[in-house]
C-alpha cells in the first residue's frame, strides 16, 4: 500500500495548512476589485491601528525587494501591485496580524482608490488594433524555467506567437477536393484543488525558509533568491504533503508575496488562501481554436491548419509554454503531410493563466477530435474507419525532429472501442484520441542513505501531491536495495537536503525521479559492497544485499554488523547519490519527448430530451504507460484525470464579465461529483515495458483528461444529432441545440 494513504485517512498527515512555526503571524491579502486601474490612493492607517495588527504590506514597500517583478518567461509580475492593477483579485496589500481572524477583520479597513483604465476582457479585445496594452515593457527571460524564449510582440498584448509548420499547406489546399473548417471554444477552468494555496515564510540569520504547497520547489527557491537578493544556498524550501495542485501550484505562485510580508513583519508569516482566493490566483487558459483540413478525392487528409488564440490573463506565467504545447497537441496521432498551426497567447484583464494537467492539451484535443468526427460525418464514413485510414504507427514521426512515436495508436483505439462495445453492438459511441509530448526536463537528483539500523532515508524534491509518488519511489528503492518497503522512508522535500529537481508535473516524477532514486540506490549498493568487501575481506562478487542486511556467502549480517566491522562501533551510514541529466542512459534522455503521453477514450451518453441534461453511461480510457509501478495508483491517476475532464466537458466555466469573475467561488462553480461517474467504466493500461523509466515505465497521469470532452461531443453528435462546439456542454446549450434541430426538422 502507498505509505501516504494510512496517514491521510487517519488524519495524521501534515499538510502545509497544518504547519505552525514559532512566532508565526497571519497574513490576509487585500485584492483588487478592478480589472484594470491605476492605484491613485491607498489608506492603510485604520488597518494598521486595528487590534493585533503587525504591519500592512503594500506596493510602497517595494524597497524591501531586490527585484520587484518576477516571472517565468517575462519578469512581468510585481510581487505586490505598486501603481496599477491588471485583474480582479490582484494582491494590493497584505495585512499581517497575530491571528487569522484579526488579519481578516483589519483587511476590510484598507481603503484603495482606483482610477479605472480601459480594459481587455477577452482575447478579441486584446487583439484589437486600439486595445490598451497591458504590459508596455517586455522583458523576456530565456531558458529560465522552460527551455526557450517566448515570442511576444512588444507594443501589443501578444506574449507568445508560435508557428508549427511542415510541408506546403497552401498548395495542398489548392489541390484539395474538399476543405472543412470549424471553430471551437474552451473556457477558463479552475484547478479546484482540495487544499488552497498556502505558504509560510521566515527570515532569520540563516536566510529565508519557506514552507509551501509548491509543485516546483526549486523554481520557488530560484525566484525568491532573485527577489530578495539572496544566494540560492540561503533560500530553503520545504514541502509537506500537498492537497492537490494539477499545475495550479506549479512554477511559482504566492511565495514571493508571502515572503515579502514576512520581511516587512520581521517575523514568520503564514498566508492561507480561501478556496475563492485560489480561484483568483490562477486558472487554465481559455482558447478559441479554428481548425481547417483539406481532403483529396480519395478522402485522404492533405493538410491541416490551426489557429489557436489563448486567453492568458493578466500575467504570462507559463502561458507561452501552454500555447506552444497546444500547437503540438492539435496535431493528433495522424498522418498529416502538410501542417501549419499558429498558437498565440494574449494578455487580458482576467485571472492569470497557468499550467494545468496536460498544458494546452484538453483545449487542442477538444478541437481536433471534434473536427475529425465532423469530417467523418461529412464524408459519410464511420469515425473509427476515418481515423484508421490516417493513424500513425509505432516509429512514425508525429512532429519533425521529435522522438518517433513509441505507442501503437491502433491498439489503443481498438481497446477503447472494444471496451465500450462489449458485444452490445453499440453503433453509436463517441471516440477521441490524443498524443502529447510532455515537456519534461530530464534533470533530477536524489540521495539514498542506508543507516546502521537498516532504515533507509530517501531525499528527493518530488512532491507527494496525491499522485502516490512516495509509494513509487519507495518501491524502486526497496527493490534496488533488496529491502522490505517499510524500512524505506521518503522524507518531505527540502532543498536543504535534497538535490535539484525541476519539479513535480508534466508526468515526470515516476520516470525521472524514479531513475534518480534507482541510480542513487544502486550507488548505495556499490558503496555497501565495497565497505563489506574491506571489512570482511571478501570479493564483492561474494557479497549481495538481503532483507535486513547483506549476504556473505551463506551467512547473513545486518547493516549494524557491517558498520561494526568497518567502524569499530555499530554506527554509521552509507550515502548513495545520483543525478539524471540529458546525458544519462547513454544519451537516450536527450531527445524530446522522453515518451509520448497518449490517450484513447470512448463513451456512450444519454440525453434527457426535456432538459438537455447529458449523462455519461459508459466510458473507457486507454493509456500506454510502459509499466504500472503501482497499479491502483496508476488507475487512480488515469481515472481521476478523466473525471476532471468530465468537469471540463459538462460543468466547469470560469466566466468573466468585463473582467469581473462571475463564478470564481465554489458555490457557483460546479465540479464533477461521484454521482456523475458511471459504474460502467473501463481503464486499460497497456504495459509493454518499453519506457525509458524504471522497469520500463513511461510517465503518466495527464492523458486521461484529454479525450473526455470530445468523446462526449462526438457521442452527442452521432447518437443524438447535435454538434456542440463550445464547452462546457451545459444542459441549456444541449437543450437549445436539440430545440433548433427539432425546429429545422419540422
Amino acid at each position, binding site marked *: 500500500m502507498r505509505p501516504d494513504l494510512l496517514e491521510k485517512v487517519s488524519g495524521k498527515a501534515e499538510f502545509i495548512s497544518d504547519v505552525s512555526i514559532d512566532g508565526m503571524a497571519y497574513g490576509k491579502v487585500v485584492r483588487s476589485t478592478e480589472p484594470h486601474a491605476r492605484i491613485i490612493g491607498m489608506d492603510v492607517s485604520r488597518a494598521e491601528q486595528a487590534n493585533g495588527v503587525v504591519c500592512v504590506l503594500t506596493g510602497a514597500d517595494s524597497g524591501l525587494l531586490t527585484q520587484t517583478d518576477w516571472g517565468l518567461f517575462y519578469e512581468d509580475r510585481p510581487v505586490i501591485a505598486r501603481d496599477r492593477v491588471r485583474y480582479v483579485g490582484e494582491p494590493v496589500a497584505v495585512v499581517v496580524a497575530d491571528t*487569522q*481572524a484579526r488579519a*481578516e*477583520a483589519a483587511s*476590510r479597513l484598507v481603503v484603495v482608490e482606483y482610477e479605472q483604465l480601459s480594459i481587455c476582457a477577452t482575447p478579441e479585445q486584446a487583439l484589437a488594433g486600439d486595445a490598451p496594452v497591458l504590459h508596455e515593457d517586455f522583458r523576456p527571460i530565456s531558458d529560465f524555467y522552460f527551455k526557450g524564449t517566448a515570442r511576444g510582440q512588444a507594443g501589443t498584448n501578444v506574449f507568445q506567437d508560435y508557428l508549427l509548420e511542415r510541408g506546403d499547406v497552401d498548395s495542398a489546399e489548392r489541390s484539395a477536393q474538399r476543405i472543412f473548417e470549424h471553430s471551437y471554444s474552451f473556457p477558463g477552468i479552475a484547478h479546484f484543488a482540495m487544499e488552497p494555496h498556502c505558504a509560510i515564510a521566515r527570515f532569520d540569520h540563516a536566510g529565508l525558509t519557506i514552507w509551501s504547497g509548491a509543485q516546483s520547489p526549486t523554481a520557488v527557491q530560484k525566484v525568491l533568491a532573485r527577489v530578495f537578493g539572496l544566494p540560492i544556498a540561503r533560500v530553503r524550501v520545504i514541502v509537506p504533503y500537498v492537497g492537490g495542485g494539477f499545475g495550479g501550484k506549479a512554477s511559482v505562485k504566492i511565495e514571493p508575496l508571502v515572503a515579502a510580508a514576512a520581511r516587512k513583519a520581521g517575523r514568520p508569516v503564514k498566508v492561507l488562501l*480561501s478556496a475563492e482566493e485560489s480561484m483568483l490566483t490562477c486558472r487554465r487558459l481559455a482558447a478559441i481554436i479554428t481548425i481547417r483540413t483539406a481532403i483529396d478525392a480519395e478522402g485522404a487528409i492533405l493538410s491541416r491548419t490551426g489557429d489557436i488564440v489563448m486567453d492568458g490573463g493578466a500575467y504570462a506565467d507559463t502561458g507561452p509554454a501552454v500555447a506552444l504545447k497546444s500547437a503540438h497537441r492539435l496535431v493528433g496521432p495522424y498522418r498529416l503531410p502538410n501542417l501549419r498551426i499558429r498558437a498565440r497567447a494574449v494578455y487580458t484583464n482576467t485571472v492569470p493563466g497557468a499550467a494545468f494537467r496536460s498544458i494546452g492539451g484538453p483545449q487542442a484535443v477538444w478541437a481536433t477530435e471534434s473536427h475529425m468526427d465532423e469530417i467523418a460525418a461529412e464524408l459519410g464514413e464511420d469515425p473509427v474507419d476515418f481515423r484508421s485510414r490516417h493513424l500513425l504507427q509505432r516509429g512514425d514521426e508525429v512532429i519533425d525532429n521529435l522522438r518517433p512515436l513509441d505507442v501503437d495508436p491502433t491498439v489503443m483505439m481498438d481497446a477503447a472501442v472494444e471496451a465500450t462495445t462489449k458485444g452490445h453492438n453499440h453503433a453509436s459511441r463517441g471516440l477521441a484520441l490524443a498524443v502529447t509530448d510532455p515537456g519534461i526536463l530530464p534533470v533530477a537528483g536524489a540521495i539514498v542513505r542506508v543507516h546502521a539500523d537498516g532504515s533507509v532515508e530517501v531525499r528527493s524534491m518530488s512532491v507527494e501531491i496525491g499522485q502516490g509518488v512516495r509509494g513509487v519511489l519507495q518501491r524502486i528503492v526497496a527493490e534496488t536495495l533488496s529491502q522490505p518497503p517499510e524500512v524505506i522512508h521518503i522524507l518531505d522535500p527540502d532543498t536543504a537536503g535534497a538535490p535539484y529537481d525541476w519539479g513535480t508535473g508534466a508526468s515526470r516524477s515516476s520516470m525521472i525521479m524514479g531513475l534518480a532514486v534507482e541510480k542513487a540506490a544502486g550507488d548505495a549498493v556499490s558503496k555497501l559492497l565495497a565497505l563489506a568487501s574491506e571489512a570482511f575481506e571478501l570479493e564483492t562478487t561474494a557479497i549481495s544485499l538481503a532483507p535486513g542486511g547483506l549476504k556473505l556467502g551463506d551467512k547473513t549480517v545486518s547493516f549494524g554488523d557491517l558498520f561494526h566491522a568497518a567502524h569499530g562501533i555499530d554506527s554509521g551510514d552509507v550515502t548513495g547519490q545520483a543525478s539524471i541529466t540529458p546525458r544519462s542512459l547513454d544519451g537516450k534522455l536527450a531527445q524530446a519527448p522522453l515518451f509520448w503521453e497518449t490517450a484513447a477514450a470512448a463513451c456512450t451518453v444519454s440525453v434527457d430530451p*426535456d*432538459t438537455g*441534461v447529458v449523462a455519461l453511461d459508459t466510458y473507457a480510457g486507454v493509456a500506454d504507460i510502459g509499466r504500472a509501478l503501482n497499479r491502483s495508483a496508476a488507475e487512480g491517476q488515469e481515472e481521476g484525470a478523466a473525471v476532471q475532464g468530465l468537469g471540463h466537458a459538462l460543468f466547469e466555466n470560469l*466566466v468573466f464579465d468585463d473582467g469581473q469573475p*462571475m*463564478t470564481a467561488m465554489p*458555490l*457557483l462553480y*460546479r465540479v464533477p461529483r461521484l454521482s456523475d461517474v458511471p459504474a460502467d467504466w473501463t481503464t486499460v493500461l497497456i504495459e509493454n515495458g518499453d519506457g525509458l523509466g524504471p522497469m520500463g515505465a513511461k510517465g503518466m497521469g495527464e492523458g486521461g483528461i484529454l479525450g473526455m470532452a470530445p468523446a462526449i461531443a462526438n457521442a452527442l453528435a452521432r447518437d443524438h444529432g447535435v454538434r456542440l462546439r463550445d464547452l462546457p456542454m*451545459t*444542459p*441549456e446549450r444541449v*437543450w*437549445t441545440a436539440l430545440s433548433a434541430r427539432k425546429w429545422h426538422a419540422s
Partner: protein
Amino acid sequence: MRPDPFTYHQPKSLAEASSLVAELGDGATFYAGGTELLLLMKMQLAEYRHLVNLKKIDGLKTIGVEHDRLVIGALATHCDIALSTAVSKHCPSLSRLCSEIANIRVRVAGTIGGNLCFAEPRADPPVLLVALDAGLQLVSAHASRVIPASEFFLGPFETARKPDEILTTIEIPLGTGAASFERMKQGNYSLATAAISRSDCHQTWIGYGGGPPKRLNGTGALLDRDDGRTSEEALFAAVAEDIFDLEIPSDLEAGESYRRHLIAVAVKRALASLHETEPTGVH
C-alpha cells in the same frame, strides 16, 4: 473569511428567546442550524452582533400526528424529517424532498424552520408546503398565531414573520389528497420546482428562483377539467400562459427561456408522479 465577532445566546424558552431578540433589536437574529446564515456572515453579506440559538429549547424538534394534522417541529433537521416514519407514511413527497436537500452535511445541521424563514427563492420546501396547504405557527413572547404557508412567503428572503417571532411548528392537514413535487436541479440550487396537490381540485405551485412560490391557476383549472388526459402541448401552453407575466431570472446558471421551459417540465413531471402516487399520498 470568518464572520465578525458576535455574542452567542442560548435561551432555554421561547419567551426568553423572543424577548432577547426584541431587546437586542436589528443586530440580533435567531440561529436555527446556520447552514445559510453562517455562510452569509462568513461572506460578509450579513452582519449580526447577536445570535440567539433556538436549538437548546425543548420540544421544537418533535414530529408526529396530532388529530388530523402532521405536525413537524421547526427545529427538526432535514435529516430528522427524511428519517421520520410519520412523515414517510403521511407525506412521502416531503420525506423525499428532505432526503434530497443539498448534501448530508447540510441535512444533519439545517432545519426546516431555518430553511423556511430564510426564504431563499430557489429553495424547494416552500413550494411543497404551500401546495400541501401547510400552516405555520409563529410564537413571540406575547402572542401566537398560525398563518397559511401561502401567506408566509412575501418575496426573496422576505417573510411575514416579525423579527421577534419564532416559527415553532409546521402543520400539514391530513386526508386532503395526493401531493407530489419535482425539481429541476443542475447546479447547487433548483432552477425550477413544481408541486401539485389534489384534494377536490388541483393546486399547482411552482418555484422559479425569483420570488415566493407561485400558484398556477390556469394550469390547475386545466388539470381539474380533463383529469389524466391532458396532452403535453396543452399542459405546456397552460403553464406558459400562467407564468407569462412572471419575472423569470436570467443569469449565468440559465437563461429565461430555458427556465420557462424547465418550469413546464417540472409541472409535467410532478403531474406524472402525482398519478403514480395516487391514491396513497397524503390521506
